[in-house]
């Protein structure tokens, strides 16, 4: 009898405990829901979904669809940031991989899978370059990846000869725009990538090792962790993710736009990781929350576009809301709020 009551209490307590334990994790999710709610009030029909030709159609699907490239890039970025690094070159790698995809599709008879492999390979090469600069030559990540950020777009322009190269491929078009089981195919690709990464990071010691390298390189080395190889692999992964995103973005517009593809996407990816609670000082990797961060950013973009706001206010409104989300998430603000709350309670008592 007593035992039964005890299990009952633990059962009742556990969600509340969970809430306390994961209070930080809840902040981005609550922010996302709030933004969705407010948008739904401002723009009626924003949450409305209907089926067209066997797939879902509506702004919510647009958010998933448009958020995919950023989500994939942010996944790699979260891992790199976890090692106390940063990868500014992802936007340029997107341009390179898109250019490779387009030029190979147009100029060669390569089958699609080979084109995709080549594009992913170009991303891995870029990642290898960044990784060697950071882990072998010990160049600061922000400087090391800045080199490719600037040069990479030039490389992409050389590949496309400065033109927008348009191509036609049914498979690539499917990756960019078609649906499978009511959802866009690219969303399934991103989902698979996220799940695989989470499993590798959390079901093996790899995630822990990466975080330990980010938190303290020397201590990690002393306990026998191969820090250099781990850092190198983080940049390889980021390059791979960026290349995947580049293929999707090129497939989306059926062309490679070397000047604009993935422009400033690195900033959104970094922001998503930070919204998830990652510290730029390394040591923490939150993969699922990073995706929530991406959804916050993309929801804002889509919401602003559907709201009819004059174009010149886009960036200011977006920045103000992001700032508000970051403020809410900061421990200091939360401390202040809870103090205020307690005082009020005292008065009312």
């Amino acid at each position, binding site marked *: 009898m007593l035992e039964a009551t005890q299990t009952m209490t633990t059962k009742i307590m556990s969600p509340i405990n969970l809430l306390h334990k994961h209070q930080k994790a809840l902040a981005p999710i609550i922010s996302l829901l709030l933004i969705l709610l407010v948008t739904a009030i401002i723009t009626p029909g924003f949450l409305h979904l209907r089926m067209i030709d066997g797939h879902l159609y509506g702004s919510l699907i647009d958010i998933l669809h448009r958020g995919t490239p950023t989500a994939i890039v942010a996944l790699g970025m979260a891992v790199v940031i976890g090692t106390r690094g940063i990868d500014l070159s992802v936007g340029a790698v997107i341009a390179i991989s898109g250019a490779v995809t387009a030029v190979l599709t147009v100029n060669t008879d390569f089958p699609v899978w080979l084109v995709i492999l080549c594009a992913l390979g170009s991303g891995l090469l870029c990642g290898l370059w960044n990784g060697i600069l950071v882990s072998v030559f010990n160049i600061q990540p922000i400087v090391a990846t800045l080199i490719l950020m600037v040069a990479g777009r030039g490389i992409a322009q050389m590949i496309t000869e400065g033109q927008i190269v348009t191509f036609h491929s049914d498979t690539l078009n499917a990756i960019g725009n078609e649906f499978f089981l009511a959802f866009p195919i690219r969303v399934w690709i991103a989902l698979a990538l996220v799940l695989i990464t989470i499993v590798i990071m959390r079901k093996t010691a790899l995630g822990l090792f990466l975080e330990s390298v980010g938190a303290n390189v020397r201590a990690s080395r002393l306990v026998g962790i191969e820090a250099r190889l781990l850092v190198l692999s983080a940049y390889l992964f980021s390059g791979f993710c960026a290349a995947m995103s580049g293929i999707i973005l090129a497939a989306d517009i059926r062309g490679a736009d070397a000047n*604009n593809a993935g422009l400033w996407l690195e900033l959104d990816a970094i922001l998503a990781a930070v919204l998830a609670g990652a510290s730029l000082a390394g040591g923490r990797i939150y993969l699922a929350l990073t995706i929530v961060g991406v959804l916050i950013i993309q929801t804002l973009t889509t919401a602003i576009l559907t*709201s009819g706001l004059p174009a010149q206010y886009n960036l200011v409104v977006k920045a103000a809301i992001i700032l508000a989300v970051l403020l809410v998430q900061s421990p200091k603000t939360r401390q202040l709020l809870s103090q205020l709350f307690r005082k009020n309670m005292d008065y009312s008592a």
Partner: protein
Amino acid sequence: MLSNSIGRNLPWLGTLKRKTLQTSLAVILPVLSASAMAESLTIGFSQIGSESGWRTSETESIKAEAERRGYDLKFSDAQQKQENQIKAVRSFISQGVDGILLAPVVETGWDSVLKEAKRLDIPVVLVDRGVAADPSLYLTKVASDFKEEGSLAASWLAAETNGRCNIVELQGTVGSSAAIDRKDGFAAVIENFPNMNVIRSQSGDFTRAGGKEVMESFLKAEGDASNICALFAHNDDMALGAVLAMKEAGVEPAKDIIVLSIDGVPDIFKAMMDHEANATIELNPHLGGPAFDAILAHRDGKEVDKWIKANGPLYLPDTAEQEYAKRK
């Protein structure tokens, strides 16, 4: 009644039905070249670089025009660097050319080199962009008027829809002169028609991806595509992105929604051949003729306007095939 009032307010609308319209709003260019005798000139041309297809065709057009007239054209590609352009202009001056064409990469920092040219009475013609310098330092500027491009687009649309149309607009990059002026020029004509309204207007950043994403959101926000009669995009690339968005939403571009844009890039002609776009206004790359004419007029001691507007024509699908072949 309606067409009457169009005719009264905008008498030039009648001429708009022609297949390839030369800019009817524009100040008609002074026909100076008739007097171009077999005088051979040496002209220096400092180009920005070859960063876009448009710039490459501008370079080629100016070279071809110089060859046609038998001029000796000294060409210099600055690879996007002002210091290279200043060097090039100085070397043209020291070679004692008869005139200089300059496509300035930035607006500022030209005063001293322009003064050097003026001291030796070498006329400098700015092509396709302006500079922030005293207008007396250069002979003239030969460039498109973005406002007139917007107005031409609006007047074509008014004629096409009998002044009755709900328009969605894809703006260029916020703050760019092309976006501001094309929007203003379009709005200035639209406001004469009570039944023409811009129902949505957003920036697609001049890119295909931007145009596609914004058009998707327009279609969702309007709920029903039949409420949108036309799309006006500030450049062709955004229009091409929007065409993809329409097709994916099950809307037929050019049929359900009129697609109208500016620039005249090769791909928009291809889209017109495929019946997916209705009209484009060319951003004229053929600036050599008017620029050389201005130098000749100056040599004859004539007064030259400080801005020679060299707007391109509006193209329709019927000539798309030839135009595409020409540009490929």
